[in-house]
């Protein structure tokens, strides 16, 4: 703990000193996981153990980056291939989880880029079209939820790659701008700016998306109900 304080106390003018000291301090503060060291040394079992240990996290990051219609399985696999290939270059200058985020986010971004460039094959199946005579009518909440998420990601597709990445990491993954800055290798201020404009564009698009009109109406009613309740409560003597 004292070591961390002393690093922070070096100040911006002594950044060269901090950089020189950092690997050593880092080793004390956050020593490399022995598993990562073994993986870097070419231990096959350690690499596989990395897959087992982090696959849920990677799948979650990929899923949130791509959305419900993404090729999550393929991208998860590609991400691990990339992790295996480049783990030797991980020097421990950041947390392993940050490095993992960076690799996975880049793989997902490459996938999105290639998906945008590809010709589209899509199902024209709307839920009512797909309903055969023998299908059971029941609560359609799951289908609705799926359709809404799809609408959300359709709007996310309209954002630039950088804005989308920042928004997904911040709003869906719950990372702080500082953490995102490390992942996307950009200053915190840049991250905040990208997030601001991403949200601004996205809010405008979501408010007018026809698929989400019902959601908008529901949240409006809920909000006005809450506001009215607030007013009532406020007007009571």
């Amino acid at each position, binding site marked *: 703990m004292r070591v961390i304080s002393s690093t922070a106390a070096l100040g911006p003018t002594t950044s060269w000193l901090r950089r020189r000291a950092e690997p050593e301090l880092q080793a004390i503060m956050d020593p490399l996981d022995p598993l990562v060291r073994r993986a870097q*040394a*070419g231990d*096959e079992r350690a*690499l*596989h153990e990395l897959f087992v240990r982090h*696959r849920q996290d990677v*799948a979650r990051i990929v*899923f*949130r980056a791509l959305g419900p*219609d993404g*090729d*999550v*399985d*393929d991208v*998860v*696999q590609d991400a*691990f*291939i990339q992790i*295996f290939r480049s*783990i*030797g270059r991980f020097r421990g200058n950041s947390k392993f989880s940050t490095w993992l985020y960076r690799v996975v986010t880049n793989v997902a971004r490459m996938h999105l880029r290639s998906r945008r460039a*590809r*010709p*589209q*094959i*899509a*199902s024209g*199946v709307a*839920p*009512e*079209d*797909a309903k*055969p*005579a*023998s*299908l*059971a009518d*029941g609560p*359609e909440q799951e*289908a609705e*939820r*799926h359709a*809404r998420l799809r609408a*959300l990601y359709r709007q996310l597709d309209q954002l630039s790659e950088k804005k989308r990445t920042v928004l997904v990491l911040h709003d*869906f993954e*719950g990372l702080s701008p500082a953490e995102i800055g490390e992942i996307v290798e950009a200053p915190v201020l840049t991250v905040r700016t990208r997030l601001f404009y991403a*949200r*601004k564009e*996205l*809010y*405008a698009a*979501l*408010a*007018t998306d026809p698929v*989400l009109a019902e*959601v908008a109406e529901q*949240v409006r009613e809920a*909000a006005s109900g809450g*506001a009215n309740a607030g007013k009532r409560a*406020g007007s009571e003597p």
Partner: protein
Amino acid sequence: MIASRAHEPKLRALEALQAQRLSAAGRARLRRHLERCELCETTLRGLRVHTQLTAAVRASAPQVDFARMELAMRQHARAAARRSRLTRFALPAAAVAVAAAVLLVLMLRPTQRTPQPLARPAAVQKVSPAQPEAASVVAMLTALRGTATVVGTDGSEQRLTLDRPVREGERIALAADAEVHVRLGTDTAMALGPAARVGLQRLREHETFIDLLEGSVTSQVRHLQPGERYVVHALGYAVSVVGTHFSVSVDDDQLHVAVEQGHVVVTDAQDRVVGDVIGPGSFEVATGTRAGIDAALVKPRVAGVPGTAWPALSLPQWPSVATWQVDGSSFAASGQLAMRVPAGDVTLTAQLTDGRLRKTLVRVPAEGLRVEEDVLRRLLRANDDEAREAGTLKPDAIMSVVQAGLPGLQRCYELSLKQRPDVSGRLTLRIAVDAAGRVTRVTPRGDAGGVPEDLVTCIRTGAERWRFPPPGASGITFDAPIRLSHQH
């Protein structure tokens, strides 16, 4: 009304309002503003939708089949480990050796009248660690119809059964009405056609070489990684593949290659490329004739993942049955049929010689099931009312499988676009799903709207691999419209 051109919504304030972080006075002030500002009101609406959808995204869990990924990841880990060791030890050692050789030459140089060429860096080769050769793979039969024999590496010949694994160096010969499906690895299998004779020249983890001496072999190969090879040798040619579904047939001295999906390269004995085929398409090696493919290729049964043995289901020959359809595979009903199927309920569909279909559910225990003739007779007479009773499946369940399966069809469209850059349109697939959720039939409905036949075939084949949640009863049939579009 506030003019939107001059006004920018204050996102921070709206977010604070939504998060209930504003004071009562601030809230009241903002609400008064919202009543007059349509732009801010719209932004707030979008913000609320975003908040709700963000919660939905966070609550959603990805459905990833890690078990299916397991083997591939082990292979990637092995390859990465090998590369890493090479980089850490062999390359530096090689560099040192080269440097030493150069130094040696430089040191010797003044004493020699004529400059000598650099010694061939034999030392480099010596310091490279010997690559351990991958162990040979034991291949399992997944289906066997009719009679086939296997000739072992010691020359002994024995009748092939479903339980008899086949190994590198062995040869398989099939009778004129026989068919054999062999699983060679993850998502990789081959189907040997009637009267086929093949030699299993090499069965390694990353290399499969099949010698086709007679008949045909249809292969389904997973997407290969760099360094991996799957080659069928026939008539002095090598048919190499890059992750695909293809068939190689020898007819007298003619070699015919049909590719349903993927990319195949044909090379001659001098390793010259004599043709390449991007599926769907076919290639006659002797004449160089190219054509489409007339019918969907046989689907070799992969049947389970390596390391697990599915139980065997045996069916007797039955005179009134023309074709058996079991677990997504279709077999002519000539001769006894034995195949590996997942334990549990399996839908058995018999197409009778008069064209009628008889469908029944059989429960296959872990130790396997041999269906005797009298049992089969009873099964085929199972009451038709039950057979007609349709299962149920929610539309969203269908939707999610169709959506998840679309990327698999993407390749068909991309390949088709290479030949006809203007292909686009719609087609409707009628998909029949059995009680266990397996697709039993995919047929295009009505006008395919200008979608070429080979593309339709490719999409059909892809859709046949989809797996739905079990609808129960006798399954369901539904229509799935597919839209093909691209930007020039």
